[in-house]
């Protein structure tokens, strides 16, 4: 992860997504606040719900229940207009305040295990989100499954990002 940051000194707050292996997907981003603060924004439902669903993406977060501690559960319900609602749920396998959160994605049988780590970088935070799928096929399927609805999502996100200003 170190090389990521040092490789990219000009735009340190860029979001990167890489398929690290057949079963793993890794997202990284730097934040201008210590891990203690960034962690809270992930662990407290009132804060989390304000950023997890980007405004203008045509999706709203209908409900957000999170019991962010080891063994706790979460359930997120999204409303997608006429498409109805979609629920995501799972449990927290490990929660270390200020350091890491590990959760399962149980809405699918072959769901990934997501690990988010918060590392101190000169008073800021290097955030790494790691998704580990049970098999190559599961990740391929996740990609293929959502690929169908992608163009529309991409357009919405493009529209969103152009209003926000890149």
């Amino acid at each position: 992860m170190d090389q990521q940051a040092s490789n990219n000194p000009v735009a340190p707050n860029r979001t990167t997504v890489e398929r690290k292996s057949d079963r793993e997907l890794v997202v990284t981003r730097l934040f201008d606040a210590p891990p203690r603060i960034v962690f809270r924004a992930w662990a407290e439902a009132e804060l989390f719900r304000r950023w997890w669903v980007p405004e203008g993406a045509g999706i709203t977060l209908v409900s957000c229940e999170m019991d962010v501690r080891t063994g706790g559960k979460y359930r997120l319900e999204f409303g997608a207009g006429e498409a109805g609602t979609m629920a995501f749920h799972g449990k927290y396998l490990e929660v270390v305040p200020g350091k890491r959160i590990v959760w399962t994605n149980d809405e699918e049988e072959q769901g990934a295990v997501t690990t988010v780590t918060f590392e101190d970088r000169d008073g800021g935070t290097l955030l790494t989100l790691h998704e580990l799928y049970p098999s190559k096929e599961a990740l391929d399927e996740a990609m293929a499954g959502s690929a169908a609805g992608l163009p529309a999502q991409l357009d919405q996100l493009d529209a969103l990002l152009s209003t926000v200003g890149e």
Partner: protein
Amino acid sequence: MVQSYPSLDLSFAALSDATRRGVLEQLGRADASITSLADKFHMTLTGMKKHIAVLERAGLVVTKKVGRVRTCRLGQRSLAAEVQWIEAHRKLFEARFDALDKIILEMKQEEEDGPASE
């Protein structure tokens, strides 16, 4: 060091050759045997077998032998779909994290201002 994932490298390598791109186009219309592909692209059976092997390793083509004929069809993996998916995933997280930046800024300011009076 930017580490790309091996299957994407394989895909790009597979697509770097005009014959192999032609074969994919052809298979997009209909499945075909290696023999008929060799005919169509005016090459030896051995030459076509090599091309198909490269495409197969990249997951772009699947082959199946029935009797003495090996038939080729397009694989499940579509390179364009994967690249597009990763980019969409990145944009989604980027939008999330831009929103998160604002919330974090608020939280930092609240901390600096001291605890809110309750």
